[in-house]
């Protein structure tokens, strides 16, 4: 039976069967991999820690006919700060979800791997939504979906004014003439410029950037809309993180109001 090593990060971990977990790993060499970790929900399992969401480590994997099996994991980092911080935990989960829906299995992308790992390390110190936004934008750049920010996607005209028209459909900002055939939203020029900085700034100096609450809200919304439009799916962790940190009272009211409402 073929065995291989993977330098990888656990980006999904689902309970499976009696005591197993199915892991989605994002590895440096092979991209996304699915593998079963057997018996890891038993308290005495030695592979327990390695099967936890967000564990980064060296995985020894047996190639199987239908599903591969993790036979050993040596964790290098478990990002334990995530266990005691709800907002950061949800941001990490939003990053993992985004990575999962934007990639297909077996396609290596070392740049994306490095970005994800770096951002998980930085998330411990940096402002949560700042890092999440920078991660999302840079992931889009790596995958070839860099949004046009500041000039018109269609005709290239330099845009001026306090508010610019951003269209997820067109993939960026549009001038007055070109916007006719697109749906979109008005976004303040400051937010557009800030998104440019989130892409260009040195990741390790990201914490020097400052943004006002309105800008944060606008960037997060514009980005979420853009990402959901591109991948044609709701970003569930991203949405939950937002409702919990920004509108807890409204959130509680909605919990009391609806029973068993479909989560989307």
């Amino acid at each position, binding site marked *: 039976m073929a065995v291989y090593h993977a330098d990888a990060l656990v980006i*999904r*971990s*689902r309970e*499976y*069967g*009696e005591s197993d977990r199915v892991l989605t790993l994002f590895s440096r060499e092979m991209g996304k991999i699915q593998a079963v970790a057997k018996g890891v929900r038993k*308290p*005495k399992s*030695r592979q*327990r*820690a390695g099967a*936890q*969401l*967000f564990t980064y480590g060296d995985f020894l994997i047996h190639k199987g006919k239908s599903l591969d099996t993790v036979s050993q994991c040596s*964790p290098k980092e*478990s990002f*334990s700060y*995530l*266990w*005691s*911080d*709800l907002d950061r*935990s*949800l941001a990490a*989960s939003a990053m*993992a*979800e985004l990575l*999962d829906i934007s990639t297909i299995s077996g396609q290596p992308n070392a740049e994306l791997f490095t970005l994800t790992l770096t951002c998980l390390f930085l998330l411990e110190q940096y402002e949560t939504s700042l890092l999440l936004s920078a991660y999302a934008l840079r992931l889009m750049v790596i995958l070839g979906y860099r949004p046009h920010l500041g000039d018109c996607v269609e005709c290239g005209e330099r845009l001026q004014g306090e508010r610019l028209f951003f269209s997820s459909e067109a993939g960026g900002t549009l001038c007055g003439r070109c916007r006719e055939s697109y749906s979109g939203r008005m976004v303040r020029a400051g937010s557009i410029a800030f998104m440019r900085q989130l892409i260009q700034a040195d990741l390790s100096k990201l914490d020097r950037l400052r943004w006002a609450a309105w800008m944060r809200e606008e960037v997060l919304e514009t980005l979420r809309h853009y990402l959901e439009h591109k991948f044609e799916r709701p970003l*569930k*962790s991203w*949405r*939950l993180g937002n409702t*919990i940190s920004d509108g*807890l009272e409204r*959130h*509680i009211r909605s*919990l*009391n109001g*609806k*029973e*068993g*409402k*479909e*989560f*989307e």
Partner: protein
Amino acid sequence: MDFLNYPQPLADLISSLARLPGIGPKTAGRLAFYLLQQPQISQDLAQAILTANHSLKKCSICSNFTDQDPCALCQNPQRDSTELCVVEHPRDVVSLEKTKEFKGRYHVLHGVLSPMEGIGPEQLTINLLLKRLKGVQEVVMALNPTVEGEATALYLARLLKPLGIKVTRIAHGLPVGGDLEYADEVTIARALEGRRQL
């Protein structure tokens, strides 16, 4: 697995069995053939499943499985109604009750927050929990030690603390009989955090 050569009812039986936890297509096939050869066992099993499904429901207070509503635990006047223990699954109530350590009441969430898997607060019994807080002084989180279990506990703490309720968590530490040497860093960190005086 290819069931195409089987008659439809047999293929249906096999694929239904294969949906059970811990049962793969091969085992499902074996079980199906066994059941076909043992009509009495099949009959009893089918009846037992239907009866259990029909008579068991979720308690309207704590959401545990029960054949009477409210369940025996919720009706028991001996249980301390100022303490509430939040668990993930009905089977966790059984585990905790075996210890005879906890005298309060339970609340079963039927899962933990896992937005990626489509489980948000609305999929859990959090609205029912918020409705039964009158007179509750302490809520004990007894969720599984996973990132998601921990996030769920933190989320509930954020909802409950502003209401003046004490929120605690059972200690996460080393398994009895386990070797410190083999424990991972998160486990050891949690165990240190939950240390107590001797």
